[in-house]
């Protein structure tokens, strides 16, 4: 299972995998998403004063944890879909987003 977290530059370690591309102030890609960070990368981030990076890591799947996540997610989506009605297409959109978010973990 993939887990994404935001870490401060000081907490980054070589070998960590970027979940989102890192950009400079002009919007140019410094390091693409999916790249493994090297020591040189981290030093360059620190020298550019970038606050941190989104990192993804593989963690062992925990069924209970996934269920707990699903419940929290459904609570959030129930609120978002509070006026979307019970039509088939509205419900299918709800389900597609649940499947996508759970699959992302």
């Amino acid at each position, binding site marked *: 299972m993939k887990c994404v977290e935001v870490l401060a530059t000081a907490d980054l370690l070589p070998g960590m995998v970027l979940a989102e591309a890192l950009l400079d102030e002009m919007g140019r*890609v410094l390091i693409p998403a999916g790249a493994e960070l090297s020591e040189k990368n981290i030093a360059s981030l620190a020298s550019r004063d970038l606050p941190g990076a989104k990192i993804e890591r593989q963690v062992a799947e925990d069924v209970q944890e996934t269920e707990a996540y699903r419940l929290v997610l459904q609570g959030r989506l129930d609120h978002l*879909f509070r006026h979307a009605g019970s*039509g088939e*297409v509205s419900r299918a959109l709800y389900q*597609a*987003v649940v499947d996508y978010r759970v699959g992302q973990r």
Partner: protein
Amino acid sequence: MSALPKERVALCLQQLPPLPQVVSELLASFAHEDDVDVERLAHQISRDQAITARVLRVANSSFYGLQSRVATIPDAVVVLGFRAVRSLVLAVGVNCTFFADRCRGFDAEAYRRHGIGTGLAAAGLSEMAGSNRELAFTAGLLHDIGQLALAANFPMEYTKVLDYRASKDCSSLASERDVMGTDHAQVGGMLAEIWHFPESLRQALAGHHEPGRAADDSLANLIHIADATAHALEFSHQPGEMVMPLDPVAWQRIGGDWQVFRSVLPQIEANFAETCHSLLS
């Protein structure tokens, strides 16, 4: 609640400053696709520095996945194609026309984030829908321009709309109708007429909340679904965000397939951060 006479809204919109010359020319070029002087238009875009800088930033973002950077508008036209550059210039040029900073409570950042999310969703779903990707992106970016126009030109009234919406937890469309007697789809349609937008864009702006009343092949169908998708992915980060009921007719008309739909969601989200960075800052 006192409604704003529709005539007053129309009059105010008619007195808006014209769009930048190059934006109007690009809009007009939709009507004669086979006979466009691309070189002349590229040079004309280059003369507007603000537009050029932003367009090049988006062109060099990962949304287009270019192998090398483009440094000029004519280069961008060669690499991305005229249509892609045109839709970027339109998106940048039109959204820069209004400033809603006098409207208390209007979250311009959230407005733009939702527009970008809808544009990316529309572009992502355009192949399934059989629509032009660039036009879909532009239509998504601009679909709520009526909200921005109302907030910029009637700031006090629009603050009341926002307060009303928060207290009743209803849609932006319903609160605009109740408080101002008009709504952002209607205003978007009027703007599209005043600015001579191509008919497909006008339909997307005016009809995205009522696609059932649009034609089978109208872009309003795709933008209706893209709008709901962007809300469902919570791009605007607003606490009152909500998904409105989806029209099954629109879904059917765009050849809706949930498997295809799920397969494009990751790309929509992946492109979001960078497109925001390029278009917002």
